């Protein structure tokens, strides 16, 4: 545990130094991501110019939903995106480091190769997400109990964990098919499912997106807890679901890593 904390502390300091030396990427991400939020808000306004109720969500509830999704997604980007995207290059052996070296480090390989780099530029978009959440909440008279707020605060980190779990599972396929070039784009597309209400997905697709691959945990479920659309005891169910998914991710990683054929050595 101490090793792990030391790893994250060192990685964090190293990333801060990198950001200070090469600030351009930071500023680009910090400025572009909020612009994307603006486009999504235009989309929301267009939807609600046609209807007052979109699958059970009023306009400002949809703002809370979108703000939560932006917050969860950008924190996922902040903590996990960079390392998980680099995994493809590590496995193919065309990065500065190689997966061979990662295997010899005195630290859990999954933790080392999927976490430990930070995208600080995403902080601004996360803040924009929070502002959108508060804006949505301020526009309608909600009766938010302490249970609702606590449930929401617990669910948001679970949503970020879902980001990690799903992107890790997709990236783990690279051990089987190292030539796959679109894992990053695939995750980019798939996570879009998470920004809409869970009730949008009915039938088979609903079972997949709400239970088997619960991308709606990224935003819709936390917001449903906040707005009292889901009873608080359901929290335990979602907690158990995320724990099971984490275990599955770990098992899949351990199973898949045996396929690694060390392209660089």
């Amino acid at each position, binding site marked *: 545990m101490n090793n792990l904390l030391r790893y994250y502390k060192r990685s964090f300091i190293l990333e801060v130094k990198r950001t200070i030396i090469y600030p*351009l*990427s930071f500023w*680009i991400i910090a400025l*572009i991501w909020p*612009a*994307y939020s603006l*486009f999504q808000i*235009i*989309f929301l*306004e*267009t*939807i609600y*110019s*046609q*209807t007052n109720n*979109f*699958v059970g969500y009023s306009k400002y509830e949809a703002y809370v939903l979108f703000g939560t999704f932006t917050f969860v997604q950008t924190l996922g980007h902040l903590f996990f995106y960079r390392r998980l995207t680099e995994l493809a290059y590590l496995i193919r052996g065309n990065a500065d480091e190689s997966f061979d070296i990662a295997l010899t480090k005195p630290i859990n390989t999954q933790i080392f190769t999927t976490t430990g780099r930070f995208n600080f530029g995403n902080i601004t978009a996360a803040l924009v997400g929070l502002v959108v959440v508060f804006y949505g909440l301020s526009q309608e008279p909600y009766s938010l109990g302490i249970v609702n707020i606590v449930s929401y605060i617990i669910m948001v980190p679970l949503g970020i964990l879902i980001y990690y779990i799903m992107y890790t599972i997709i990236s783990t396929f690279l051990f089987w*098919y190292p*030539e*796959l*070039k*679109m894992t990053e*784009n*695939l995750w*980019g*597309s*798939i996570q*879009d*499912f998470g920004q*809409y209400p869970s009730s*949008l*997905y009915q039938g088979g697709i609903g079972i997949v997106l709400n239970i088997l691959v619960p991308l709606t945990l990224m935003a819709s479920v936390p917001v449903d807890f906040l707005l009292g659309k889901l009873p608080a005891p359901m929290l335990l169910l979602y907690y158990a679901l995320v724990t099971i998914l984490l275990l599955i991710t770990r098992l899949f990683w351990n199973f898949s890593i045996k396929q690694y054929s060390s392209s660089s050595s």
Partner: protein
Amino acid sequence: MKYVRTFLLALQSEFISRANIVGWFIVGAIPSVILALVWLAILGDKQSINGFTKGDFVLYYLFVTFSWYIVGGNFAFPVGNGIKDGRINMTLLKPYNVVFGLCIQEQAWKALSFIIALPFALIVLYLFRDDIHIKLTLIQNVMLFISLILGAIIFAFLEALVGISAFWVTEMWPIAHVNDMLFSLFGGRMLPLTLMPPVILFIANLLPYKYIFHIPVSILLSKSSNMYLDIGLQFLYICILALIYQFVWIKGIQKYEAIGS
């Protein structure tokens, strides 16, 4: 002939890692599936929204997904990377247009993806056969084809312009990202432009993005008020973009330091 060879070589390369073709199809189809679900949910029991029926929405997003393999692509990065690492040097003195060559290479995965995606398009058309009504005259069919090709040329010029921005900037991905975002919003990939707020529609009318997808899909859905004028405007944008491209390329080459040569 040299560009035909380029295309055939790129086609062979695509066959080396076939899983990518299927993967890219899934990547491209997901946003359209989500957006179609959103609009069908909004439509609910209503007959139409601003003249868009259930069949229109399905056809719209089906077209957006599948016409990407004719119109779209992503060769700004190969162009930009070629400039950054000096790979374009070897072609500058030869009778070979490097940007056009990369554009031709891009057509390989698009052609294969189109073939793979075709059965899925037919399945969707079959599932929604009672809702989708395509009634195009021969002239409209010809105009749709011309409009698609012109849209592809406009898209190619925009991608090429983003790519050759690498003559001036070391990090061109933000420009590509902004270009993508503008294309999504003002090009009608995200949603039909006629459903947008008036101010967005006004801006979209001034930008070239509308002329990539929106015009062909309007012809397909028989929603174009004057398709001859629309196609004329596509021609106009191609001329303007060609002039801008030529100017920027010449300025870029004058500035280019040919790293790696």
